[in-house]
């Protein structure tokens, strides 16, 4: 169990503030956020190498705030694996053994579990990326930490290794019941690995909750953008309708005091001709731009001065021969329109 209370770290030019987090025993928790949000800094404060300005850190109920890293028993797995290059695989794995002889006296099962039996005598620089990450994992687990921190453990890996290590981490977590706190900037990764997640931005936590809840119901414009709701508009909500400018969109009714809507670009369908009548919202606008993204494309449509962003496959775009400047029709299902609190109310929420 990890608990972070009112943590603040003030550095020249950057500050983490008001960090409150609780990771339950055996839970896998993801810290999400863009580069520079302060995620790694928070991890390093929990390990104990960055001094804390204010606040407290508890692991399994013990206050560790003042302890040096070597007395915290927290494992760490970095994206660049941080293996000791002058030691071989076996020496790397056994590195922490002499400081905690009581735990895990036999590393055999762990080594076998991670498929490292045949690599034990190899030098670090001769390993592949995936092998290095497995060795690093074995090294941190060999001292039986109460908590394992993962700093983007998959980012630096080849896509194929990535799937292996991801699966390995998941099953290890399920089997050992170790508490995991992982840092990532990739929502899909958080979705696969974690039960709950916190989204960080500029040194603050913007939203905490189950992964699905954050994906489906972001509470701030930043989180909405981060989970892919690229369309964010201030709106007036009247009953089942959201009024944006002089547009009226039907939505499903939700309880709460809402002053904005957010829509995923992939939930906006675009075509040249009008849609047949139905239960969806239909709009007409001008296609401003098509931005190629490889297999798919971003489509920017202006509807009465409001810029909508849609995503469509290039296959479909080519078939329908949509081009910049065309008049196009949009369809948005009511259940895909996400109602949000306004900007003003968001700072009033309490997190944690």
């Amino acid at each position, binding site marked *: 169990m990890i*608990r972070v209370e009112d943590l603040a770290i003030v550095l020249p030019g950057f500050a983490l503030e008001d960090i409150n987090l*609780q990771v339950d025993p055996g839970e896998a928790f993801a810290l999400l956020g863009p580069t520079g949000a302060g995620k790694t800094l928070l991890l390093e404060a929990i390990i*104990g190498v960055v*001094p804390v300005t204010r606040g*407290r850190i*508890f692991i399994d*109920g*013990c*206050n*560790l*705030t*003042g*302890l*040096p890293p070597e007395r915290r028993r927290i494992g760490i797995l970095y994206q660049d694996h941080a293996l000791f290059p002058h030691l071989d695989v076996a020496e790397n794995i056994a590195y922490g053994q002499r400081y905690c002889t009581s735990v895990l006296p036999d590393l055999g099962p762990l080594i076998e579990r991670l498929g490292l039996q045949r690599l034990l005598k190899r030098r670090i620089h001769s390993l592949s990326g995936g092998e290095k990450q497995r060795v690093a994992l074995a090294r941190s687990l060999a001292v039986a930490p109460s908590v394992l921190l993962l700093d983007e453990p998959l980012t630096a890996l080849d896509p194929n290794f990535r799937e292996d290590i991801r699966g390995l981490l998941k099953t290890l977590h399920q089997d050992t019941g170790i508490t995991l706190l992982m840092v990532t900037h990739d929502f899909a990764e958080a979705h696969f690995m974690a039960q709950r997640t916190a989204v960080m931005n500029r040194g603050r936590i913007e939203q905490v909750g189950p992964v699905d809840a954050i994906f489906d119901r972001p509470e701030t414009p930043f989180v909405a953008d981060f989970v892919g709701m690229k369309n964010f508009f201030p709106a007036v909500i009247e009953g089942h309708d959201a009024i944006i400018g002089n547009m009226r969109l039907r939505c499903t009714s939700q309880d709460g005091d809402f002053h904005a809507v957010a829509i995923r670009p992939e939930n906006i369908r675009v075509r040249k001709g009008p849609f047949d009548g139905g239960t969806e919202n239909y709009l007409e606008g001008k296609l401003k731009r098509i931005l190629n993204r490889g297999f798919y494309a971003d489509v920017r449509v202006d509807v009465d001065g409001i810029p909508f962003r849609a995503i469509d496959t290039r296959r479909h775009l080519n078939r329908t021969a949509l081009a910049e400047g065309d008049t196009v029709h949009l369809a948005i299902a009511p259940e895909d329109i996400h109602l949000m609190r306004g900007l003003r109310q968001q700072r009033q929420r309490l997190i944690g």
Partner: protein
Amino acid sequence: MSKTTDDALPLPSPGSGCCRVDPFLGIALAASAIIMAFILLPLVEMVVQPSVDDLRETWSDPDVIRAIGMSLYTSGTAALIAFVFGTPFAYLMARKQFPGKRLVESVVDLPIMIPHPVVGIALLSMAGRHHWFGRILNQLNIQIMGTVTGIVCVLTFVGLPFYINAVKTGFEAVPARLETVSRSLGASPWSTFFRITLPLAWRSMLVGLIMCMARAVSEFGAVVIVAYHPMVAPVMIYERFTAYGLKYSQPVAVGLIMVCLVLFLLLRWASPRKDGTA
């Protein structure tokens, strides 16, 4: 989450700050303090000790002024020679890759490692009448022993590596691509060097000049072999020390330290900033 159970545990309280006073850091800090004191104390004492009268006396002694002037003149000339020959050499080393490059780099650093009197002796040996090179010099009517030429020669020898290394680093920091673009726009290698490379590397060249000159000003062992007269400041310090004792040599030493301090401040001012503004 109830706080009572957690807080009751017998663990160090937060803020006890055991990371900050750990013996590792303490010992490192102590060692650092000793080093700083070891370097700074003698120099500070040196500058602070002499009375205003002592200093006035020093600066009104024409011999002292002449020696310091000779030091500045010979070192400056050495720096200039390093500039003329070292700049194209540093440019080649920064831009070209060739087998044996590391060996050439080592050779450039050799003068730093050669004992100072040996430098003087080696140059004198070359210039002697028994040596082919010495005979050439003789025919050209160039004297090394006991002349300004000789002093400049040894000072260039000891100062060169400092100039070349500083300027090479400066040239390496100028992207080769800028030169490619300049030439594709019609500029010759010369124009490119003077319009692009030089304006972007001048700070490093200034740093190199100052370092070369500072090293040359401080040289004694090589100079004293080649030329006791005309007297440069370090030789005068030595002469006064051996002839009249410590107290009498101090004012000259202070005068020379002042010169070095000015060079040191110039160097700090000239050093390229890390934020990259030229």
